[in-house]
């Protein structure tokens, strides 16, 4: 009992750390990756020692983005505008960040692992209604930005808050509908069980990943996930060119960092959820408990502990690749107009999601029930 | 011998198709399509009717064709089976309706050529034909009543065809309402018959079955039913006292006057009485009433016709007068004579109206005979055909009207109605007078046409004159199917009809030749007088009118019957409605009660409303008190 509790706590901390590190990776990608895409140099200051250049390496701007920027952020003055609601102004960034962080708890980042006779589930909180939990926490995320915008006593901030709220609520529905189809396919609300049922192969070689069963749900979830994290092309709430920074405009220092981190963490969360639902989670193609069963009939034995660790690594790799993909999206697409955003959400994604649910239900009934 | 003959339904189907076509497609497809379909369906129906009629002729006497349709309604033991039946009587009527109808449809193509609502006109006309055929072909009283109402509706629609003119619309309503009174009588008659039959266990209104059970009627029932049905007939066939609508109906297009208000619909009453002959022979009193009303109507309408200046009004009163003859005929028990006159009248009166229409058409809408004259050279075909029709209606020997009118007068005399015979004979003279007055004023003498209409004056196009010629031929020779007894084939028409309507049994012996001589002489006298009055001494009518000013104006104003009805019925009705029912009962009593109740509620509400201040929370507090009480009650239950 105690040891499980301790391990659960460790897992939870681990998961939050993974999320935060992914956010840092995304922060770096934001600065340096965008420069690469846009053919700029990007962050190139704070090259303290110059060792890299001496060794003939390009300036990666690591210190600039990962040390100097955060230090600057957290040492700035924490400014609260006149007439603002102090309490809520301070509360809002954490209301935004908190639900995202607790969501990491239900994501399975590996299979069960057996150490010293104890078997642990590599999932911080093995909820059997995890999918609902997910929707609940994501829904809670609205309050942070909404109240942040409202509490700033600033028109742009309020507009940004309203936009953010409307956008998140709208796309939550699309996301929920995509999730419903996924839940119907796997027949469970438990994310670990979902990942498990993505093990094995079809036709002897094709991994049974969710994306092959629910391609439309994948696209819907991806789109809605990007919209939820309020990134380009869905960054209307921040809309730098029209609302300056939207709901964040009156924030500075650590609180603004919290808002920014929320966005990055949401992006990381989206990536993790996509991996969990559609890309096999920690599953590696053809890898079973006892080792690889390649399609040709070859077999490669691997120790169970190594299999579990390989799973965790595979999960992380998939998530990083998806994060990078989301970053690419952010720097490749132009921004929507607000009415286009709403039209896409309500007239595009929601009907598609409903149709997807309908078709899924029909197929499930036609083929004689879920798994 | 009864033979099933499914093609009978085609006689109904084609006009119905015409209605649908003209209603929905006519306005879109235009005149030429309506021109083909409107009259076309009638000619097809005429062909089918001819086929049916020839079939009957080929079969033994007393045969009938029938075509059962479906069970229409059922109420307890009573049920109505729809069916069509063509025997000798309805065969003749179908031939008249489809034949004369077809030619009048054809004529309408020319007459209505310049009207905007062309398709609507033919829709109504086809609908009329459809309804009339239902009336004629029906094998039971209920279905006949459907047709009866249908023709009434069409009559209304067509009288008020140019409904933008308020007077025309008024006349349409008048016709409809007056007919309603008659229809109420007809309906009551049906109820009386049904009640009598049902009392004896027969739950049917089928003509054949009714005839088979005619012995169930006692004299009282037969008289009541006969008189009630005759009330319907006075409405539809414009007899005293319900004739007032027919002259006003002349505001409709002239083909309508010809078809509905002369040739077919108005004779429905005669047909109905002939059809119900088995009932009427049981009720001598009812028969006497029919004959008397007929004779009086014939005379009164004839006298009014003498002074009317409007060409169509003359013909309208003439129609009423001729209808009176028909009722005199059937009322005398000589049903075949009545129907015979229906047929010849359809020919010559239809023709007269069509000719009048042709004249009006040529005159560009002018109907006043004082503004005509000397038209015979301008419109030769119209003149000659109209002359033939006039000779026919004036009962000049050799023309159709002579044979039929002679039979009627003979029937009246021989059934013992001497005074009615005398009235009819005098009316024959009057008929000759006013008809030739019409001819002389219109076609002879000096032209009184207004100068601006002279250049417009023209003979009508062939599509109008062909029907005239066809009907003129029929008017001339149509009477030869019923020659006097003993001459060649004798009275073939009456023999043909006798299985249906029975044979005429004279009560008084008389010499047909003598009777005929008297009536014909009176007719000739009338023509002679007209010649003197209107051709030899054109000033004489003026002088006479001035001298007999009172009488002249009384006639000109149609005995002021409309005014009388106004005084006796309409005004008291309005008085009762307005002063007693409206102001007395409605406004004072009912409104007073309602307003008083309202006032009571209002004043008590004024007090009670203080509790209702509109504040939701105050209501909620009261609600809370209720909740506390309910929870308290349950608490009491639990604690106990």
């Amino acid at each position, binding site marked *: 009992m105690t040891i499980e509790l301790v391990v659960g706590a460790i897992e939870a901390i681990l998961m939050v750390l993974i999320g935060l590190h992914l956010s840092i990776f995304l922060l770096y990608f934001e600065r340096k990756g965008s420069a690469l895409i846009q053919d700029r140099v990007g962050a190139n200051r704070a090259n303290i020692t110059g060792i890299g250049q001496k060794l003939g390496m390009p300036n990666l701007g690591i210190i600039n983005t990962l040390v100097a920027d955060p230090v600057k952020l957290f040492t700035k003055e924490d400014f609260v505008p006149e007439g603002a609601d102090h309490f809520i102004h301070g509360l809002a960034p954490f209301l935004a960040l908190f639900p995202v962080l607790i969501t990491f708890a239900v994501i399975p980042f590996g299979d069960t692992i057996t150490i010293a006779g104890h078997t642990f589930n590599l999932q911080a909180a093995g909820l059997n209604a995890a999918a609902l939990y997910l929707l609940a926490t994501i829904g809670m995320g609205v309050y942070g930005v909404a109240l942040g915008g409202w509490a700033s006593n600033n028109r742009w901030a309020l507009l940004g808050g309203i936009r953010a709220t409307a956008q998140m609520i709208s796309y939550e529905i699309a996301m929920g509908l995509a999730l419903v189809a996924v839940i119907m396919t796997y027949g469970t609300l438990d994310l670990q069980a979902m990942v498990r049922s993505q093990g094995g192969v079809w036709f002897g070689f094709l991994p049974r990943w969710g994306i092959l069963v629910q391609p439309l749900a994948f696209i819907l979830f991806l789109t809605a996930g990007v919209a939820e994290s309020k990134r380009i092309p869905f960054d209307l709430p921040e809309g730098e060119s029209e609302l300056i920074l939207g709901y964040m405009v009156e924030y500075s220092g650590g609180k603004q960092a919290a808002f920014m981190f929320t966005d990055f963490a949401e992006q990381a969360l989206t990536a993790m959820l996509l991996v969990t639902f559609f890309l096999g989670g920690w599953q590696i193609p053809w890898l079973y408990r006892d080792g690889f069963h390649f399609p040709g009939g070859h077999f490669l034995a691997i120790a169970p502990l190594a299999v579990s660790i390989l799973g965790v690594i595979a999960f992380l790799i998939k998530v990083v690749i998806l994060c990078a993909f989301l970053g690419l999206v952010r720097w490749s697409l132009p921004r929507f107009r607000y009415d286009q955003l709403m039209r896409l959400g309500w007239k595009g994604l929601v009907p598609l999601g409903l149709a997807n649910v309908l078709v899924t239900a029909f197929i499930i009934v036609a083929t004689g029930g879920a798994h | 011998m009864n033979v099933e003959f499914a093609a009978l339904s085609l006689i109904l189907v084609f006009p119905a198709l015409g209605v649908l076509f003209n209603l929905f497609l006519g306005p879109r497809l235009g005149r030429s399509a309506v021109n083909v379909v409107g009259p076309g369906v009638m000619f097809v129906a005429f062909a089918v009717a001819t086929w049916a009629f020839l079939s009957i002729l080929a079969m033994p006497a007393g045969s009938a064709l029938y075509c059962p349709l479906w069970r229409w309604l059922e109420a307890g033991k009573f049920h109505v089976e729809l069916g069509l039946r063509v025997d000798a009587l309805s065969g003749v009527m179908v031939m008249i309706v489809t034949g004369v109808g077809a030619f009048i449809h054809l004529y309408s193509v020319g007459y209505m050529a310049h009207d905007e609502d062309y398709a609507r006109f033919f829709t109504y006309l086809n609908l009329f034909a459809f309804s009339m055929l239902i009336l004629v072909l029906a094998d039971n009283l209920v279905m006949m009543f459907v047709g009866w109402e249908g023709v009434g509706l069409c009559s209304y629609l067509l009288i008020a065809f140019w409904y933008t003119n308020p007077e025309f619309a008024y006349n349409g309503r008048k016709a409809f309402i007056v007919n309603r009174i008659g229809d109420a009588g007809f309906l009551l008659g049906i109820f009386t018959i049904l009640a009598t039959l049902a009392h004896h266990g027969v739950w049917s209104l089928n003509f054949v079955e009714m005839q088979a059970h005619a012995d169930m009627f006692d004299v009282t029932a037969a008289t009541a039913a006969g008189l009630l049905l005759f009330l319907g007939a006075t409405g539809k066939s414009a007899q005293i006292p319900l004739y007032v609508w027919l002259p006003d109906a002349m505001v409709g297009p002239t083909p309508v006057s010809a078809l509905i208000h002369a040739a077919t619909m108005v004779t429905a009453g005669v047909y109905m009485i002939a059809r119900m002959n088995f009932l009427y022979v049981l009720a001598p009193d009812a028969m006497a009433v029919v004959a008397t009303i007929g004779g009086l109507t014939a005379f009164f309408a004839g006298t009014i016709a003498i002074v009317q200046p409007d060409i169509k009004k003359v013909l309208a009163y003439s129609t009423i007068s001729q209808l009176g003859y028909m009722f005199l005929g059937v009322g005398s028990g000589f049903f075949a004579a009545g129907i015979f006159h229906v047929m010849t009248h359809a020919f010559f009166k239809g023709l007269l109206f069509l000719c009048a229409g042709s004249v009006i058409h040529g005159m560009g809408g002018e109907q006043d005979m004082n503004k005509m004259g000397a038209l015979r050279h301008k419109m030769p075909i119209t003149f000659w055909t109209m002359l033939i029709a006039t000779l026919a209606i004036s009962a000049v020997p050799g023309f159709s009207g002579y044979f039929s009118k002679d039979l009627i007068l003979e029937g009246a005399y021989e059934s013992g109605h001497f005074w009615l015979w005398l009235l009819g004979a005098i009316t024959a003279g009057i008929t000759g007078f006013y008809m030739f007055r019409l001819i002389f004023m219109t076609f002879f003498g000096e032209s009184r046409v207004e100068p601006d209409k002279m250049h417009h004056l023209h003979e009508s196009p062939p599509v109008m004159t062909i029907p005239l010629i066809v009907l003129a031929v029929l008017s001339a020779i149509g009477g030869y199917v019923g020659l006097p007894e003993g001459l060649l084939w004798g009275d073939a028409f009456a023999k043909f009809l006798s299985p249906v309507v029975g044979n005429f049994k004279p009560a008084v012996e008389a010499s047909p030749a003598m009777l005929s001589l008297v009536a014909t002489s009176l007719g000739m006298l009338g023509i002679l007088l007209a010649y003197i009055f209107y051709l030899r001494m054109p000033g004489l009518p003026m002088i006479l009118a001035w001298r007999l000013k009172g009488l002249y104006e009384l006639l000109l104003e149609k005995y002021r019957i409309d005014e009388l009805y106004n005084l006796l019925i309409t005004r008291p009705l309005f008085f009762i409605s307005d002063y007693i029912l409206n102001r007395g009962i409605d406004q004072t009593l009912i409104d007073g009660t309602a307003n008083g109740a309202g006032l009571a509620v209002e004043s008590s509400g004024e007090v009670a409303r203080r509790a209702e201040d509109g504040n939701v929370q105050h209501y909620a507090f009261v609600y*809370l008190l209720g909740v506390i009480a309910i929870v308290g009650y349950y608490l009491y239950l639990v604690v106990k």
Partner: protein
Amino acid sequence: MVQLSWLMELSAAIFAIGVAGFLSRRNILVMFMSIELMLNAVNLAFVSLGSRMGTMDGQVIVFFVMTVAAAEAAVGLAIIISIFRNRETVNADDLTLLKW
């Protein structure tokens, strides 16, 4: 072990707070929120009793209550908006016409 009566009395307390809020607050929005409080108090009672009896019916009722609450919120808030548009106030004391 959590006693059923604790849950029920908690439910009663929240309900009473809701009633008090509805009766005392003048802002119709807050009155509306008080109604939601009452609904939730009742929901809590349903779930608690259902859980104690081991049946799902209580939860199903709660499900329906939520649906009705959603419908009620949509319509009710729409009414509040249109009232505010016409009257420029959401003070229940000023809205005594019971119509607009």
